[in-house]
């Protein structure tokens, strides 16, 4: 296709991103090469000590742990989200936007309120316990809140609609006729799914997984509230450098490495998806 029209189409967005992301963030990230001033300002002497500090095992282990938790969240959220998106896409066309609307509606309330609602449900004397008591159960309830499970639950909950929306996009193409044609020709439902639906919609799952992973890894409110502050995610650490420690240079260094790592993972994933969709085309 015409590469000139491509350039015209992408120009406005790229200009916006350059002016309002690349330049400002670039300026802040260069601080990684300077020192933190005594009072928290910047001491403009060149140093690589911040970058070196990022590779301290402490931060590596926190990053791995965050990635592990984010990974679990991705698996659960994508499984549930894809199923939900598939179900929505198989509803009558007119109903689909309405269902999507209701899927995101809870998330127009407020993040903290929803999290506190979960705390009300999950705490030791909370609603779930009370309901259990009400049905006659009188033993000791297992600890639900302030556990890693609660954090995972909170993260899955928060990002499920994003997966649904992402998976829905390619699924919206789903033509019931293709599936019927395939089945008329003798293929089982599962084969139809595997050979036609899945490759078609793989980009959607990939995008959804990216959303959930990226958003989970940077999230620090959920671990603080539902985890009782006992699970340190890499998001907390970056936040702490900029705001609590007033150490912008180290925060910048940490962010730089984090962005680089994530970028590599994402680019690898994009290549894998391209290969996956092309293989069955």
């Amino acid at each position: 296709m015409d590469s000139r029209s491509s350039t015209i189409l992408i120009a406005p967005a790229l200009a916006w991103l350059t002016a309002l992301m690349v330049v400002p963030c670039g300026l802040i990230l260069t601080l990684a090469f300077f020192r933190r001033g005594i009072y928290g300002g910047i001491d403009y002497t060149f140093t690589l000590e911040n970058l070196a500090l990022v590779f301290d095992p402490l931060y590596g282990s926190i990053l791995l742990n965050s990635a592990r938790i984010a990974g679990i969240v991705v698996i659960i959220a994508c499984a549930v989200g894809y199923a939900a998106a598939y179900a929505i896409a198989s509803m009558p066309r007119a109903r689909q936007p309405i269902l999507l609307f209701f899927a995101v509606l809870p998330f127009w309330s407020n993040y903290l309120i929803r999290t506190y609602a979960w705390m009300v449900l999950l705490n030791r004397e909370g609603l779930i316990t009370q309901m259990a008591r009400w049905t006659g159960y009188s033993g000791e309830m297992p600890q639900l809140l302030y556990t890693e499970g609660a954090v995972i639950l909170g993260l899955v909950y928060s990002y499920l609609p994003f997966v649904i929306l992402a998976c829905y996009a390619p699924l919206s193409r789903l033509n019931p006729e293709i599936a019927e044609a395939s089945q008329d020709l003798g293929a089982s439902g599962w084969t139809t799914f595997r050979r036609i639906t899945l490759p078609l919609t793989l980009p959607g799952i990939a995008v959804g997984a990216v959303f959930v992973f990226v958003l989970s890894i940077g999230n620090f409110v959920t671990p603080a509230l539902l985890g009782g502050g006992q699970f340190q995610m890499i998001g907390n650490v970056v936040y702490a450098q900029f705001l609590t420690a007033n150490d912008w240079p180290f925060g910048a260094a940490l962010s730089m490495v984090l962005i680089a790592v994530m970028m590599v993972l994402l680019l690898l994933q994009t290549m894998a998806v391209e290969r996956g969709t092309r293989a069955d085309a």
Partner: protein
Amino acid sequence: MTTPITTLTAFALFTVLTATGSQGQSLTISNWDGYMAPDAIAGFTAETGNAAELVLHATNEEIMGKLIASGGQGYDVVFVSSPFAEILHNLGLAEPLDHAKIPNLANLYPEATKLAHDPGNAFSLPYAWGTTGLCYRSDLMAAAPTSWNDLLSPSAEVTGKTTMLATDRWLLGAAFLANGMSVNDTDEADLAKVRDTLIAAKRTLLAFDDTTFYAKLVSGEAVMTQAWDGWCNYGIGENADIKYVIPSEGSDLWVDTMVIMAGSDNKDAAYAFVNYILDAGNHRWAAENILYKVPNKAAMEGLSPDLLTQYTNMAITPADLLKYEQLRDVGEAQRAYSRVVTEVMASQ
């Protein structure tokens, strides 16, 4: 398709035009929610004729981040805790105070004018002060706690039912005091010891909680918590079995202050505001309603004695308060503190 776009673009332009014009003339004050009387702004405007608006910040760290990134633009008066006021001063963002413009300064206790972070009130005015200690349910504990170690190495009875403050300085403070060190200690070996104490303590905690620990005490989910004295009062108000104690190793003296920003365009109005707040009647509101001690002699003397008996921590004298060490900005050592906290929080 195009009509909605046109309408929305017009809407957007309208917003831009209206949004830019709203600043400049009135005083912008940033404070925590509920920390001043709801009618303080209105009262101030009525009395002095200066327009003012209140905006909120949830934590010191956030407002400091904003002030440092913007060079202090846009705000006229901010309420921050004392170590942060020090930082503002060191970065040149705080206005050096002209005491002639603050006659109500005379209302303060003499001790409040000799605070370690700002002797002589060169750049900050104390608004509220207090201690950090243990807030606990006396009916659910066999014996009253007397030491920070009762929290850090809890007995079987209270294990899993305790909380600690998540904010860096106070989290570390408990361990510093328990180990007999200064709350502003920067020695590496001492920090390592504190880290180990806290990692061990973390395993016995229910949660880290800065804001709802008193609700946990009321519901019985927690039995002993690290708490600021003013916050403990909210719990006491709901359940008379809740008590506050300063452990034998001591506490820190925390001070929340008012700072006038050097970049303010309305300095005279800002002075009028801080002076208004330091008025005995106005300042007393804070003591009576949010149950914090205020460093204002004239205000505290007007308090009803019932308040002092119900909330025993309100009755501590300024002389006693000053026995405790104030949290100071520790400069470069803040990095080491941050690292220790990260290690503690990340430990399993």
